[in-house]
């Protein structure tokens, strides 16, 4: 009987990087783990849902699909041995329907990134203008919305950046370990050590160092070039752009910055992002 560790984040916040480090830590093999074989299958994977439910999501309404997801993850956990990692961008609930089965959840790792940088990265990922990315982060984001065609993933209500933070951090029955993308960049060993500890595993420092080295941006980017990366939405935009933090300062207009900070100042303060804006 397994238990789930949710790898939760707003899109473009370093989730895949965390998955890479965790995978390399768990396997600790001779070579870096392949980018397409990372732990943490995305919870909104259509096939996962269809298999576990017994009726295809494409024959169900969005509301029905949402209502079955928690039970699907519960079944998955029950058939698994040990910790089951699932990546997720959804907020914890879709409307009033909770997506997370608390009884089989061990913990959540919440990966946060400055929403100003998220906006820049999201615009590239969705192939849209920055203004649109800013609007979605402030008004609410939905991924894989079926607009005329079936998408490979199930629709995900991600909400606004701040609402997403609140949905994962407030009033959970399971431990939520928060880590900032910026700390992963500046102090990787400390940041990733905290993540491994939060999964309940003892930390072997050298093993952790090896795992971090095998998951550097350069190595992830190189893998993406040679083997492609199955989750990418658009063939034209590369998934791993630059990985730097603070790129918003060059890419965003003052009005865009004001809008993001104005909408999310409380949550940005929780993560210490506000003092960086002058």
């Amino acid at each position, binding site marked *: 009987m397994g238990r789930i560790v949710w790898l939760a984040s707003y899109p473009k916040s370093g989730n895949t990087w965390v998955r890479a480090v965790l995978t390399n830590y768990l396997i600790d093999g001779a070579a870096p783990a392949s980018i397409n074989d990372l732990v943490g299958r995305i919870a909104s994977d259509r096939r996962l849902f269809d298999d*576990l439910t*017994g*009726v295809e999501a494409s024959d169900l*309404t969005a509301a029905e699909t949402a209502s079955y997801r928690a039970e699907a993850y519960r*079944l998955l956990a029950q058939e698994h041995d040990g910790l089951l990692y699932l990546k997720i961008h959804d907020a914890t609930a879709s409307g009033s329907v909770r997506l997370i089965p608390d009884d089989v959840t061990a913990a959540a790792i919440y990966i946060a990134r400055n929403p100003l940088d998220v906006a820049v990265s999201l615009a590239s990922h969705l192939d849209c203008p920055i203004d649109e990315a800013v609007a979605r982060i402030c008004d609410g984001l939905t991924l894989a919305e079926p607009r005329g*065609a079936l998408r*490979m993933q199930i629709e995900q209500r991600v909400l606004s950046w701040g609402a997403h933070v609140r949905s994962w951090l407030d009033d959970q029955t399971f431990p939520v370990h928060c880590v900032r993308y910026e700390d992963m960049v500046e102090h990787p060993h400390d940041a990733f050590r905290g993540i491994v500890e939060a999964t309940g595993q003892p930390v072997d420092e050298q093993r952790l160092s090896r795992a971090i080295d095998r998951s550097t941006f350069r190595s992830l980017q190189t893998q993406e070039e040679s083997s492609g990366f199955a989750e990418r939405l*658009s*063939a034209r935009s590369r998934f791993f752009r630059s990985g730097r933090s603070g790129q918003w300062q060059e890419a965003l207009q003052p009005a865009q910055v004001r809008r993001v900070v104005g909408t999310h100042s409380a949550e940005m303060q929780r993560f210490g992002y506000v003092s960086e804006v002058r």
Partner: protein
Amino acid sequence: MLSLYRVFGLTVASELTLTGLPAGSGAPDITVRLGTVPSHLPNPRGRGVLFEALPGAYLLRVDDTARFLARDGCEVTVAPSASADPRRLQTLLLGAVFTALLHQRGSLVLHASGLAGPNGAVLVAGHSGAGKSTIAAELASRGYEVIGDDAAVIVVGDGDELMVQPGLPQLNLWKDAATHLGLDDATAQVALPEIDKYIVSQPFAFVRGPHRLAAICVIELGTGDEVVSEELADSERFSVLKEQTRQFRVMNALGTNSSHFQLASRVAAQVPIVRIVRPLRHEARQQVGDIVAALLG
């Protein structure tokens, strides 16, 4: 009051009125009756969110629509709820429930659309969203007969040949694909409320009987810009068919693994299987259609 229909090579006697199926005759292979259905099976061997199953019995419960009990590959009991949408009842019956029945009967049921041409039947398999229905519509527009959409049933025929049975004579198209074909609300029937899917039968031709299985294509999404196709290596063929089996968990719970294995391994050994990788963003109807058309003859 039982009406007779014909689908998947079976004669179906049903108390539920079914639309869009050709009439059947003779002794029924499957009987569908209204009645009471329990909420659970005793000691299911396997289950999913909406189903439970054990050898000889499959139970599907979809709140607000119905409970279905399928037994021994030949009997279905349906307990509809008061507010059940008849289109939804039919979709679930001919979809999930019949897939379970067909597993019980020892057929190989794949997640695939099928077309018939001079060379025989070519199946277009793939996971939801890969574009099976779109490609089926493309080939149907080129004049090939449609065997079915989304579910392909393979059996061993009287002459010991691998045959594909006729499926539901309809294509399930999403709005973009329907629009591309020049269809609209007048010509295409909405599949279900709140879902942007259409059931289309005009102006396409549908097969009336089984066709010899000639080839299988599997559509996958790739990160490149080109359409790439290649025959599968021997070591991949069975596992791809296993992956493309409809409701594999259900089959497992029904305990029909041995008949599934026998048929799937035979198909893997005898039938060409081609992987077609298309770009993420672009359905490449023309190019993918050309590859499938070449196999159809």
